[in-house]
């Protein structure tokens, strides 16, 4: 018994000792000051945010720590973190499509009271970003994030190639019009076909780079730019969740066929599983004439010593026969509900929402959604891609932001990749199967799905 008592005493002492050590460590950390962890994707704008965050630390004394994850595992990593109620992130810049799930599952702190208290008005931000990044349910005054990084799909092109007299005359001879950035998808395909396989400066080049990635969201974020403009709609605007005849309309099928034609005729070989980074590599190495990518990368591309400056031009996603839209990207910044530092996190959002900070955010390479910044008279001249960015933000459309978005997205990835890259079935069959998949998902979610 005495032995047991001794053992008990020893264990208690060890536990108390360990607790004392932990407490001492904690005290030391506390003495060093407060700290916030911000979670986001690892890409160019994240570096700009680190730079910007130094001002916040200077003003508040709160140290900023960052957790940046590559795009291909960004959703997996952080949705897992939020799902498991982890405490890794105090602040998160979450993708626009997460907003439904984050709101319904209470992963994010609702910001309405905070916005009222701090007099932060959502009317001061670009409408599309408020709907896309902050509101759930959509178009209702329930805010779960502050628009942080406005973004959309845009295009870059080799301005230096387009302006060469020999290339211009060859193009005019073939198509009977001047070579200029395309305004429609038909023009885009013609230009891409013209450059495909052409030799420029002794090097074989290709027409266009488009998104084809299978694993996360790539091909969906690419194909929607064609689908929207050919007549694809997610649902009947008058009857929510009625997808039959909207997702798989004949026009939508034509849009999907167009994307496949563009992929087959005018892209570099081996472009079967490529997303943002592969596009940047292809463009920077001088392989392609035109590149589809997110505006977020354009500041970096403009600065590139080989293809930037005078050699690069930008254009808005071309129009299709039934509309002119582009895919919305970008994210809002939210406070994670399980954070132990909610007050400090809210202080960061308050600081970030200031017009001076937003202005600096744009200057550093981030994309502000604050009207005071983007509607300023000098904004279009502030960067060579700024006019295209403004135009694009006025025509954006986003993917589903339902809590079940991940299922909806992966179903679309599969159906589109099967058709475009793996040559399986027809465009109509792919979209019909997609309606079937999505109907099943919504029914599981308890939604009423009308077939007609």
């Amino acid at each position: 018994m005495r032995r047991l008592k001794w053992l008990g005493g020893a264990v208690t002492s060890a536990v108390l000792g360990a607790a004392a050590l932990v407490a001492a460590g904690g005290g030391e950390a506390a003495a060093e000051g407060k700290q916030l962890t911000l979670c986001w994707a690892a890409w160019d704008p994240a570096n700009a945010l680190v730079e910007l965050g130094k001002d916040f630390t200077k003003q508040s004394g709160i140290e900023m720590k960052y957790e940046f994850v590559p795009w291909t595992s960004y959703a997996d990593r952080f949705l897992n973190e939020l799902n498991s109620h982890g405490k890794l992130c105090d602040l998160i810049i979450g993708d626009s499509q997460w907003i439904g799930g984050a709101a319904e599952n209470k992963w994010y702190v609702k910001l309405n009271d905070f916005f009222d208290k701090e007099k932060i008005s959502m009317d001061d931000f670009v409408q599309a970003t408020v709907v896309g990044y902050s509101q759930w349910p959509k178009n209702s005054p329930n805010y779960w994030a502050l628009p942080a990084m406005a973004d959309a799909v845009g295009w870059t092109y080799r301005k230096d190639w387009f302006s060469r007299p020999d290339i211009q005359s060859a193009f005019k001879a073939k198509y009977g019009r001047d070579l200029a950035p395309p305004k429609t998808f038909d023009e885009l395909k013609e230009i891409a076909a013209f450059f495909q396989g052409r030799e420029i400066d002794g090097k074989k080049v290709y027409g266009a780079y488009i998104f084809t990635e299978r694993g996360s969201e790539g091909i969906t974020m690419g194909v929607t730019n064609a689908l929207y403009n050919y007549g694809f709609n997610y649902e009947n605007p008058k009857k929510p969740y009625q997808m039959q005849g909207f997702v798989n309309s004949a026009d939508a099928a034509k849009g999907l066929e167009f994307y496949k034609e563009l992929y087959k005729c005018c892209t570099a070989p081996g472009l079967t599983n490529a997303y943002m980074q592969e596009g940047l590599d292809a463009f920077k190495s001088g392989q392609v004439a035109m590149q589809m990518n997110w505006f977020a990368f354009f500041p970096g591309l403009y600065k590139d010593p080989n293809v930037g400056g005078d050699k690069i031009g930008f254009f808005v996603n071309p129009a299709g026969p039934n509309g002119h839209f582009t895919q919305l990207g970008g994210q809002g910044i939210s406070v994670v509900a399980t954070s132990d530092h909610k007050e400090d996190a809210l202080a960061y959002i308050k600081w970030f929402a200031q017009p001076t900070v937003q202005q600096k955010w744009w200057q550093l390479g981030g994309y502000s959604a604050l009207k005071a910044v983007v509607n300023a008279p000098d904004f279009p001249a502030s960067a060579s891609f700024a006019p295209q960015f403004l135009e694009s933000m006025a025509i954006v459309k986003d993917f589903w932001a339902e809590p079940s978005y991940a299922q909806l997205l992966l179903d679309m990835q599969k159906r589109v990749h099967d058709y475009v890259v793996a040559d399986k079935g027809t465009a109509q069959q792919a979209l019909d199967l997609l309606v079937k998949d999505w109907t099943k998902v919504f029914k599981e979610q308890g939604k009423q799905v009308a077939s007609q």
Partner: protein
Amino acid sequence: MTTILQPDHVTIPGVSEPAKSRATRRVRGLSDRAIAWLFVAPTIALLLAINIFPLVWMIRLSFTSLNLSMSYLPLRFVGLDNFTDILTDEDVWFRLQTTAQFVISSVALQVVIGFGLALLINRQFRGHSFWTTMILLPMMLSPAVVGNFWTLLFQPQIGPFNYLISLFTGVPPSSFSMTGEVALAPWTIVLVDTWMWAPYVMLICLAGLRSIPDYIYEAAEVDRASAWRQFWSITLPMTVPFLMLAVLFRAIENFKMFDMVNLLTSGGPGSTTELVSITLKRAAFEKWRTGYSSALAIILFVTVFGAANIYVKVLNKVKQR
């Protein structure tokens, strides 16, 4: 040796017999059985915590509608719905078919190449140790590393693999993509898996070859048996149990293959190389369909467990022969 300090028949005034007996036991210390349990208990606790409990929990979840991306929805008991959904889903059957094709092709190739390498390495020649090490190198690499560097090798514009093929066939190197074409991608994953794991089969076969006593070959030579005859009548029959063991290990491993294929093709193009493990991962950790994916995991577990059991029984029969 145990020293009993307290004699059995000491009478302590005022203390009853049962109390006395308890005191005696305490003084004597723990029984051998109790000590054994004490040693085994942490392992059992750990096993229960990290194996049995999750398994039971997973079985429970497989009968529910749980979806972690919509955990605010009430948890419903759905009976066998998840199992019915899976077994009637055409896509799942396609994925199982793809997996079976991958397992059969890769294991068959690995056995042929592994056995061939073992026959070569079993002979003594100059640089024997060096070549053995070189052959074993691929299986020492992490599948993540293998997936990434083969992706680079297969890159149509800069990858050396395409240039090598071009050298022998005259086909332009950038005109085909090993990981991106429906006809090539399934063979690409088989090729990389074989490159990585044929050495493992070789090791097992080598153990089999070295276990054959020399006197059997000596007796065969006395009987003037040809090399071919010796191979068919001695080498092959005596290494069959080892080959079967290698097939078992590799088949189980390849059935749950995920990392390397995910890095090489992400299951693409389309769903051409989507093995059932990738489907399971997508259902569980990307779509968050916890109930559904638990049911799928159980179906896969039962399939592998059942097939492995039948195989082991056959293996034992072969050994007895």
